[in-house]
């Protein structure tokens, strides 16, 4: 249940913060003109704000001194106009910058989502869902804020500081130098801060993602948690994770407090030095008292920009981390892609052939043999082939290979003679439709779920698919076919879900049907009905059907036996029963049933103690 921290320290060489953030540039590019305009407006607003005191001063020195009340109107008018201009400029700044910021965010979010949809299943196996979600939501939120707020302030404040220091130096160069020298420790601390803060920021964002994962699992797995009454247990897990996050957040706050301390202290010390130095300079006549006042007035103006550097820096590093995390997903190389020049199958017949197919999961250790270890199998057009094997022998894996949910490690799979890797994914998947072993329904209407593969189908086609899957129960749901089936179809019974998944595969009208244990949740009667109806479809459609029970095998023309990664036997059910011992072992239940449909009362036994350390069960497990 514990999420895993994605390794954040594997970067060989971290690019600079600016370079890292600028990777976002392609998404931000269309917005940049407005952002520049926004900066311009912000500068203007700042200038106007600075100009107002100047007008006041001239007013005080001029008309007020002379006591001429008729002269007052002009300057007051100017102050009013400047004030209005300042407000307008602020409005402009926001208007220019904020809206493009939201566009950047939306563009990136769509980009991420599309990339995630493209990335192969193997990627999704590895990545905890909360990590993906936190990237899509909070990280992009951070990036938007930076572009529409942080960036502008950063630029404007930096310019203000530089201009300010020049002004200071022009008032008195000695004091200016003192000011400049004192800012050196700030720069150094800024660098130290980056190192310290970035690590914590990264950790906090990762931990937030893990927390999201835990929340998601606690809801998806709520039936298990309820069945075992483990709500409190799950809460403890969640709590310890949340505590970790809290610790990190406080560490982050301490880092911020550290830089704030410096950003406040250093200017204070500088002021004190300048005060001492300035008064001394004035006493020896190097600077006029008026100049001294001007110096401090200007230096005071610089205080806010200097202080703001603290949160601007932390914001920037947060954004950098967010960008890093975003690009971790975006940089992920998609291994299952459309070919450069896809071929098409003009008249699909549905001949599916496996040529010496090998496959192993990416995380499988070297010492293990390939899970699929050289499969050769031919499905003739219209043929129905059952795939039989022990639990964990790789049947589902083989079915996944046929639609390129995973790619073979070596060998090839061809459809009508064309390597499936030479077809576009879109085309391949319109030729081959699947019913998974777990139904994977969406919280949409029955109709939308069934027509997932072919939304343009007519009602008649929908009805036909439902009939074949014996899913007429769907018509009796409260709102008929428009009834929402609940998250993951959870407001349906197990067999109902499975039949909808089957109907969905059938409704896609594929040339090849791949059904993974499609009847496991059905009772004997319904199973027989579905089989009868399915036979009609299967007469003309190639099908690969994973089967655990003889009854399902009956659907097939031929059976392929999967054993230790190879197809060790292919033939008709009765042939295999006669010729293959492993096949009998896998599929036959008769030997154990004793003598017919009798009922033998279970022998009186002492209950198994739950802790039977060391006692191993008689190993009836053969094969694997």
């Amino acid at each position, binding site marked *: 249940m514990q999420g895993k921290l994605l390794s954040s320290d594997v970067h060989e060489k971290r690019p600079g913060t600016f370079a890292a953030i600028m990777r976002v540039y392609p998404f931000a590019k269309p917005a940049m003109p407005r952002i520049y305009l926004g900066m311009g407006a912000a500068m203007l607003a700042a200038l106007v704000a600075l100009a107002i005191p100047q007008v006041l001063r001239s*007013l005080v020195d001029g008309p007020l001194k002379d006591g001429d009340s008729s002269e007052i109107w002009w300057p007051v008018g100017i102050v009013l106009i400047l004030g209005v201009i300042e407000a307008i400029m602020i409005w402009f700044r926001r208007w220019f910058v904020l809206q493009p910021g939201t566009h950047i965010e939306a563009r990136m979010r769509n980009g991420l989502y599309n990339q995630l949809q*493209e990335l192969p299943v193997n990627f999704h*196996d590895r990545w905890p869902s909360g990590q993906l979600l936190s990237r899509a939501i909070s990280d992009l939120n951070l990036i938007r804020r930076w572009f529409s707020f942080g960036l502008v302030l950063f630029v404007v404040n930096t310019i203000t500081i530089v201009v300010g220091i020049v002004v200071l130096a022009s008032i008195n160069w000695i004091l200016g130098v003192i000011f400049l020298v004192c800012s050196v420790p700030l720069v150094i601390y800024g660098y130290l801060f980056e190192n310290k803060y970035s690590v914590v920021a990264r950790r906090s964002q990762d931990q937030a993602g893990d927390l999201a994962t835990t929340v998601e*699992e606690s809801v998806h797995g709520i039936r298990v948690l309820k069945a075992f009454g483990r709500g409190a247990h799950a809460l403890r897990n*969640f709590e310890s994770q949340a505590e970790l996050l809290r610790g990190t957040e406080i560490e982050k706050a*301490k880092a911020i407090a550290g830089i704030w301390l410096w950003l406040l*202290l250093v200017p204070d010390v500088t002021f004190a030095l300048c005060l001492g130095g300035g008064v001394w300079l004035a006493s020896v006549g190097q600077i006029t008292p008026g100049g001294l006042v001007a110096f401090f007035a200007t230096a*005071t103006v610089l205080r806010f920009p200097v202080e703001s550097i603290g949160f601007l820096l932390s914001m920037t590093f947060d954004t950098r981390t967010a960008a890093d995390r975003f690009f971790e997903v975006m940089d992920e190389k998609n291994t299952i892609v459309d070919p450069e020049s896809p071929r098409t199958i003009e008249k699909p017949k549905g001949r599916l052939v496996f040529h010496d197919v090998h496959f192993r999961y990416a995380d499988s250790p070297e010492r293990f043999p390939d899970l699929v270890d050289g499969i050769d199998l031919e499905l003739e057009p219209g043929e129905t082939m059952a795939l039989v094997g022990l639990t964990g022998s790789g049947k589902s894996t083989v079915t996944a290979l046929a639609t390129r949910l995973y790619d073979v490690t070596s060998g090839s799979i061809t459809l009508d003679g064309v390597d499936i890797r030479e077809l576009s994914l879109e085309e391949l998947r319109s030729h081959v439709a699947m019913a998974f072993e777990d139904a994977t329904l969406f919280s949409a209407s029955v109709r939308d779920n069934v027509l997932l593969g072919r939304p343009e189908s007519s009602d008649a086609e929908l009805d036909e698919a439902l009939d074949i899957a014996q899913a007429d129960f769907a018509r009796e749901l409260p709102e008929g076919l428009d009834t929402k089936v609940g*998250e993951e179809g959870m407001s349906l019974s197990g067999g109902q879900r499975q039949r909808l998944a089957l109907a969905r595969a059938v409704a896609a009208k594929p040339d090849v049907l791949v059904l993974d244990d499609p009847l*496991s949740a059905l009772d004997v009667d319904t199973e027989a009905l579905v089989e009868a109806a399915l036979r009609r479809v299967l007469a003309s459609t190639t099908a690969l059907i994973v089967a655990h029970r003889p009854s399902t095998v009956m659907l097939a023309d031929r059976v392929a036996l999967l054993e230790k990664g190879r197809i060790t036997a292919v033939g008709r059910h009765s042939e295999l029963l006669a010729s293959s011992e492993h096949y009998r072992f896998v599929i036959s239940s008769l030997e154990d049933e004793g003598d017919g449909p009798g009922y033998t009362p279970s022998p009186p036994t002492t209950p198994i103690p739950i802790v039977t350390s060391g006692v191993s069960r008689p190993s009836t497990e053969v094969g694997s």
Partner: protein
Amino acid sequence: MSVTGVEGEERHDFTKEESRQIRARSLTLLGSLVRPLWGRIILTIVVVVVSTAAQVAGPAFIAFGIDNGLPAMLEQDWMPLGVAVGAFLFTGIIGAVLIAWYTVLTARISQAILIELRKRVFLHTQRLSLEFHESYTSGRIIARQTSDLDAIRELLDSGISQLVQGGLYMAFIAIALFGLDWVSGLVLFGSLIPLWFLTRWFQLASQKVFRQTRTASARVIVHFVETMTGIRAVKAFRKEKRNAKEFGGLVEDYRYANERAINLFGIFDPGLVLIGNVTLAVVLLVGGLRVAGGSLAIGALLATLLYTRSFFAPAQEIAMFYNSYQSAAAALEKISGVLEEQPSVPDPTGPIDLWKAKGAVRFDDVEFSYKEGRVVLPHFTLDIPAGQTIALVGSTGAGKSTLAKLISRFYDPTSGSVTLDGVDLRQLHPKDLRRAIVMVTQEAYLFSGTVADNIALGKPEATREEVIAAARAVGAHEFIEGLPNGYDTDVNKRGGRVSAGQRQLISFARAFIADPVVLILDEATASLDIPSERLVQEGLQTLLADRTAVIIAHRLSTVAIADRVLVMEHGRIIEDGTPAALISGTGKFSRMHAAWRDSLV
């Protein structure tokens, strides 16, 4: 339509009355979160006040240094200057240290509130019944726990200082201005009128818009989560393009809602500046005329101008605070809605303990429907004596799982009662209930984490030996040993790392290790191959000897180990008897069994 709980969560056009009701409940929630932290909050406020005072004092020392230090300096007296510099340094250091301290203090407060809120929501969602979860969807809960909490965090992180500092400043300055020149003070008061209107407008408009951002972001999250959960089906059925469009639409809605929220602030903020600047001009005019008339000193005018300007500077801070407050309030509304939901399967108020259950289950005049008016299990009574093993069979959708879910109290019967050893499940202490009754659900859900963790979920304090023993007992040991890291292999999200049959074995081991008195197996072997199923059944024979068990299975091989068979059809138990009697009879079961026998080879 009421707005209790999560009802009406998707609406934003509340009436005044509803709006008030929602605000009230989120304020109550906020109050309950903040109450235990009062001490710390007061400390934080004190820190802010002192540090603000220190900051304000600084310029006075500069003035002192220039006005007194300089003349003294000219007479070779260093003292005043030294005092000024020293005092300035002192206040500067105090101010800086306090602000740094304050930063950590608020982080602690805000994190304390957040973690408490997280825990409450988590625990409450665990308590809420399946009925709620089926319609609310996990995505929304995740949205509550992530993006909504982010909004609240933003408020907490900077809110206190903005509010206290801003408020303090403004109050001090207003008082000072009145003391200095009451006419200017009146002008300032006059400016409060447009200020009030502006704020009121912002409040009403932003309340609505922020609500929209919350629902829009929740929708984005719901869609996102669902796509990622069903990624295989998305790919296999080529839903990518359609999804991209749909998601794009939701993202655009969210973006637009955000834009509107930001735009509102984009009017509010310059609006404040405008009011401030106009007020300044008016003060200047009023003051200037009097200066020209000689009834006001220039210095006083200068001071009033400076005060007026500084009065509006923190107003911006407060505006920011108000903005994040509105956003957080909208988030809190949604969260408080979830917390307000009453579980339809509530924990008992006066629970009855049942330390040692025997395992007799009884349905007394029970009737059940998921949704009003659609009866799934019509009225029935059923007695399952302790220790009996029941095979529950019947066509799909007949209501078998439903019956099982009533025993494990996933739902409460619509009428009548389900009892364990004579105690109504609704009164039974939840701990005892869960210890006594365990169900392996039809969906074998595994959490990401190791195999051992997943098995040990049935008994968190289990040792490794116990975990292995349980795995052995259900025949899962061999394949687990064969995984790359054995019991420490991560099964990935939803157990995607192992095959469907292996998932079932692991969930079976999980139930095994829990060692309940009543064990319910809902299609627990449906995805297993026949040899594993046989192995499981052998294990069951001994395991179930002195337990009550309800085994739901379409493969009738289970019947061999059952003492009694119940056949269900359309929610009714149509046959009930020993396997032998039913098989030799002429009913549905005998037919089903024969058909099943025929299918075997």
